[in-house]
């Protein structure tokens, strides 16, 4: 139900999540994110395939963001759907995360353009 893909491009890990992130799937998402974080590269999470995210999914992303900040690495969310964006707004986290409209924009930020 939940797909987790990792692609490496210009020294950046691009993680594509597809499906609902809920109490059932968020443990896998968290595990995947933590694994990717260990690689020590900037991370872009593409949420275009995520129609639904709940508090446990948001919590996994928050935890990743905090870990990445400590490492001084960038952690960017891109292509956030309207529904998912609503949840970030409700959680007042829309200003905490770096959120870009699409992947290209995210990559530009990573490159410092």
């Amino acid at each position, binding site marked *: 139900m939940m797909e987790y893909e990792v692609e490496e491009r210009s020294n950046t890990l691009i993680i594509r999540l597809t499906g*609902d992130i809920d*109490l059932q799937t968020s443990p896998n998402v968290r595990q995947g994110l933590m694994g990717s974080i260990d690689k020590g590269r900037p991370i872009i999470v593409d949420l275009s395939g995520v129609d639904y995210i*709940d*508090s*446990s999914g*948001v*919590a996994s992303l928050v935890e990743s963001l905090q870990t990445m900040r400590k490492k001084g690495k960038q952690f960017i969310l891109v292509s956030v759907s309207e529904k998912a964006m609503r949840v970030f707004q*409700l*959680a007042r*986290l829309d200003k905490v995360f770096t959120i870009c409209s699409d992947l290209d924009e995210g990559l530009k930020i990573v490159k410092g353009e």
Partner: protein
Amino acid sequence: MSQIDDSVSSEAQGALDFLAEMGQEFSSTPDLDKTLLKAVHLIAEYVKAEAGALFLLDKNQKYLDCVASVGPVQITGLRLNADHGIVGNSVQQNSGYIVKDVEADPTFNKAVDDKTGYKTRSILCAPMGVKDERVGAIELINKRGDTGLFSDDDLNLLQVLATSAALAILNARMAEQLVEQERLRRELELAAEIQRSLLPNISPEDFPVHGMNLPARVVSGDFYDYYQLDDGRIAFTLGDVSGKGMNAALLMAKTASLLRCLGKAILEPGALLARVNEEVCETVTRGMFVTLVQGIYDPERGYVRFANAGHEPPLVLTSKGEFFTIPAESPPLGISPSLIGDENFPEQEIHLDGGALYIFSDGVTEGYLAMGDELGAEGFKSLVKKTEKKGVFSLLSILKAKILEGDRPLRDDVTLLVVDDNISVKSKRFERGFVEAGPTVSLGEKLMTIRIAARPDRLRLVRRSVEETSKFIGFGKNDVSDIVLAVDEACQNIIRHAYKANEDGEISIEIRKRDSAMIILLRDYAEAIDVSKVKPRDLNDIKPGGLGTHLIREVMDDVNFLSPPFDGGNLLRMVKMIG
């Protein structure tokens, strides 16, 4: 002389030993018939008779039945007329009888001998009785030895033995009766225990509904009950079965069970009473009937809706301190199903608005006080007034003390049920949060209900159900997403915090539309959680915990934990306004 004294005392000692042995026999064996046989055997041995028989008077004292016999011929089971013959005369005249030599007695009836082929030569018979109470007689036949004839000494001895046998038999019978009485008493106790278990547990003082039942006898014909419905409202009942004692208690148990069972499915008091009436009419016997009030109280809004089947008019004390009563509008249950026809029983609705409703059996107002006066309706009202400020527990305990004060036994079961809206107004348990428009306890239309395993892999199914229901009600795209999120988060809280991830639990979800509100009720069956610890997180502190609760409060117009249902668990109500 000294020699004679010695012989007398040794003979007396022998008789005493014998009596002691027989007494022992009687007190140690529960089987009276066996004991009697042993007694006849011992007596015949002691008097040195060839044969012996013990006769007992039957219940009507018309016949003497041989219940034990020893000797060459068995006559156990033989029945003699109690008013003639040697045994009959002995019993009638309460005196010993001796036929030293049958050959010389023309009155001797040879019929038995002819039948048995046994040659009777000499007969002893002594009545068994204590004071005026006749029990029966012991007959001995033929002295062992050459002559085979009894002497007057033998008769004296038998008379002593027969008297003590009579005492022993009476004792044994009394013991039997005591055992039987004890058994009946124990059965009644057990019945009362089961009956008490039909009454609800004592609820905490800040719960708005309380009751009391004092049975006049061991078991009661009255009952009361209350329990919380899944939507937070409280159903209550008070009934009085005509009569007292076991038959009333059994009908009470039946009616109470029917109400408890059907009351969870039929949420309209009038319809519920109609249904219970049909059942009671089908089986009720000998003109018994049940007067009953059944209703539903909405603690959040202070409304009570009830139906009254021929019961004493409930009493209302308004928040301004005024009393009024509401008379019954229909006959008792069990009179006739056709009295009401297919119609439901009429319902009445009142807004307690901080006041209280008192429903009671006539045992309350007709209860005797210490001086022998009845408490009466006015007496009850003044008790209510006096304890108004001190709370329901105070009323219940003072009423109990007043009615039990005199030495008189209760003349009728005393039963009282109180619905105190004032508690709801004050209690944190029943915060009067969100109140929709309209003076009706109606719950609106039930659109969706599911009961589902409390597991993460069921949440998707929950979301789809809630999504479709929200769309059906007419919410816009964004609201639908919000509602779905809120229900999902609430379910997560149940899974993670109430059930602590134990996947055996279940969640019930019910969605209703009432006026312009969508009402979502979430119920779990876990241990009650501490509501005060359910707090939205501080948004500056970005940690996972509490985020879900924050999201729920963000998107819903009203979120309330209702008081925990009686059978445990938690009940969360969320309201989303339409438009």
